[in-house]
């Protein structure tokens, strides 16, 4: 547990990392501004479509079915992709995936790789791996481009530079381009466009993620708003796709449902601006497209969730970011405080499941369990329940041999269980508490700046225990029961079994 003042230099926990974010008014204002806008647009787009709950249920059913039969659909996808001419590589972890990509890049003697936005490529840290080997990597999504100039990582699944203000972006571009561009959006975009055009034409290799892989055809489907994935996948001679193993859909009919859910949930758009369906490399009679298509399929902890009743559905995720936009924790601390590739509620669940490192162990605690994430999720992943299940798992881990020697939390909750399991003990302990608090209570409130609950009392007035609990008062209450009211016509008609 981290107290109020303990967070200043602690970067190993989310409470420590969020300390800096909470002090950054620019970041918080930028995140609030954009998430509010995205939420409003999503509301508009889903209301206009109508029957949103039915759409969500269809989305959930498709994803749950696919994930439950992932072996079948993945095999079908791979067979069809190979039949269409793609080379398919399997990677058990991030290391294997980046090695596979590096191998292709080195075989092609490539010096410049153009990328479109891809969270899975962040997951395998491919940019730094390629740069270590002297390969230049250029991000061509505008947000990713900004992040790359700032030498940062994305802080949102959909809006990588959500934490940057326009002023900060101007400074980055000005530094890169050597001239003051001002803060006009058009000028900034024109600058990025001219720089990126050069990259598209010069790149030896184009690299993308994969929104969906269609099993029935072996196609890779990409959703973008800037058209950069089309450039990246079509202009360079070689196209490398990195895809998470769960990103398969059985058919194009299923894609139609996702094409309705994803853009509406992500940015409140009715349709995505560019949807590219790529089936194999360039064919003999075609005039454009890469001559080689490589698909690197990444496991990296995903298959461990299969068959786990509590967590399998996390693989339903279509990476829309809607849970980030509604999360009140994300709203205040932004994405970097999560300390991992995937931020927000989905990150707080996915990261400890995929990576299982101690530095991510407290991510599931960074939630008030308000359930907004579940409500926003287009494929109905019960993230709030998964967060509790992860806490349960952490508590069990601590109790095992080799776990922590004294789990203070367990001691506290076991004390609670002992005292609250019997009404007599409960009455006694609350009576004692009333006596103990007496010197601290003022005007119905406890004003304390010390003690185990200081995190609470340091910033709030805590109520004092009432002089007498309800259970004692109740025995003296005389109930004056009126004749049943009938004011709404149907009063008290329900059958009392």
């Amino acid at each position, binding site marked *: 547990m981290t107290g109020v003042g303990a967070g200043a230099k602690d970067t190993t926990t989310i409470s420590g990392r969020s300390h800096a974010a909470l002090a950054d008014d620019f970041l918080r204002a930028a995140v609030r501004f954009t998430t509010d806008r995205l939420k409003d647009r999503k509301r508009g787009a889903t209301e206009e479509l109508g029957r949103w709950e039915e759409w969500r249920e269809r989305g959930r059913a498709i994803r749950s079915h696919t994930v439950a039969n992932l072996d079948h659909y993945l095999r079908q996808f791979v067979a069809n992709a190979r039949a269409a001419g793609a080379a398919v590589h399997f990677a058990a972890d991030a290391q294997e995936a980046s090695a596979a990509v590096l191998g292709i890049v080195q075989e092609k003697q490539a010096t410049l790789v153009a990328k479109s936005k891809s969270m899975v490529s962040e997951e395998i840290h491919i940019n730094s791996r390629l740069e270590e080997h002297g390969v230049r990597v250029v991000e061509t999504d505008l947000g990713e481009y900004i992040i790359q100039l700032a030498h940062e990582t994305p802080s949102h699944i959909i809006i990588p530079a959500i934490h940057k203000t326009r002023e900060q972006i101007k400074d980055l571009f000005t530094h890169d381009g050597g001239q003051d561009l001002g803060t006009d959006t058009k000028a900034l975009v024109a600058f990025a466009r001219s720089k990126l055009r050069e990259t598209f034409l010069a790149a030896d290799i184009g690299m993308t993620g994969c929104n969906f892989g269609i099993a029935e055809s072996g196609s890779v489907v990409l959703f973008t708003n800037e058209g950069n994935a089309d450039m990246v996948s079509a202009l360079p001679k070689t196209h490398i796709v990195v895809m998470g193993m769960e990103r398969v859909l059985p058919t194009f009919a299923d894609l139609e449902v996702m094409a309705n859910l994803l853009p509406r949930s992500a940015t409140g758009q009715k349709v995505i601006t560019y949807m590219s369906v790529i089936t194999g490399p360039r064919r003999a009679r075609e005039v454009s497209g890469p001559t080689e298509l490589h698909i690197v399929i990444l496991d990296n902890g995903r298959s461990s969730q299969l068959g786990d009743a509590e967590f399998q559905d996390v693989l339903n995720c279509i990476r829309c970011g809607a849970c980030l936009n509604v999360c009140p924790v994300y709203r205040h601390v932004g994405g970097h405080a999560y300390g991992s590739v995937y931020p927000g509620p989905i990150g707080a669940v996915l990261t400890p499941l995929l990576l299982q490192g101690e530095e991510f162990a407290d991510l599931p605690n960074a939630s*008030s369990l308000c359930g907004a994430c579940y409500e926003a999720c287009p494929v109905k992943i019960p993230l709030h329940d998964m967060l509790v299940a992860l806490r349960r798992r952490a508590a069990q881990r601590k109790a095992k041999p080799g776990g922590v020697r004294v789990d203070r939390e367990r001691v506290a909750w076991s004390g609670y269980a002992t005292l609250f399991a019997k009404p007599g003990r409960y009455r006694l302990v609350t009576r004692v508490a009333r006596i103990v608090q007496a010197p601290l209570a003022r005007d119905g409130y406890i004003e304390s700046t010390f003690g185990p609950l*200081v995190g609470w009392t340091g910033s709030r007035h805590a109520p004092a225990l009432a002089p007498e609990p309800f259970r004692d008062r109740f025995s003296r209450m005389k109930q004056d029961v009126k004749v049943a009211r009938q004011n709404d016509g149907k009063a*008290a008609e329900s059958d009392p079994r």
Partner: protein
Amino acid sequence: MRMRVALFVTCLVDNFYPRVAESMVRILNSCGVEVEFPPEQTCCGQPAFNSGYAQQARVVGRTLLEAFADFDYVVSPSGSCAGMVHHHYPSLFDADPDETRSARELVPKTYEFSQFLVHVLGVTDLGAFFPHRVTYHPSCHGSRLLGVKEEPLQLLAGVRGLDLVPLPHAEDCCGFGGAFAVKMPEISTAMATEKADWVTETGAEVLVGTDMGCLMNIGGRLRHMGRSVRVMHLAELLHEGMEQGRG
């Protein structure tokens, strides 16, 4: 046969806010319902459950299974505690067949207070008069886990003289989250501060809600920030309004 209604008071209201439970009893009496209070109940176990300590939650939650076994209805001033029963009891008590049965029986008869008034008693107008500017915070668990969204608003709409002003970003959590507020105090405080700021911005004299956990958090923050908004549970507001309506 008369229906037997039990008050599921919750540990928080029992010890800190007994007036909320008293108001509930008075309101239910006025609707022709006599309320019983089975003293075997202590707490629903949610604090331990949400922290990952299910066994400890189970031990405590058993007091509810025992307390409410003989009742037709169980009414709670908290959507969160009622939600705990609805959402988690069947799986929490799935190891023992007798407990599984008790838990499954408890779910359909457990109601949040406003839900019980509107859906079981069919009451939305209690004849209350409360001439004040009021804003309403919908608690997350009540509205999302239990689906109680319209009921409190229907009851407030039935109060004469009440000027209900919308709370901006009403659906955002106040930052309480039980142990969350203690484990992640800075994040929780940031959330509570934003909520308190929006409440203040409405210019409301009274903040009303349906869950004392949230109201304790928002009220505690408001008071700490020196804001003078009065914080009331819906039952308190309705009961006070009924007294005024009578007088």
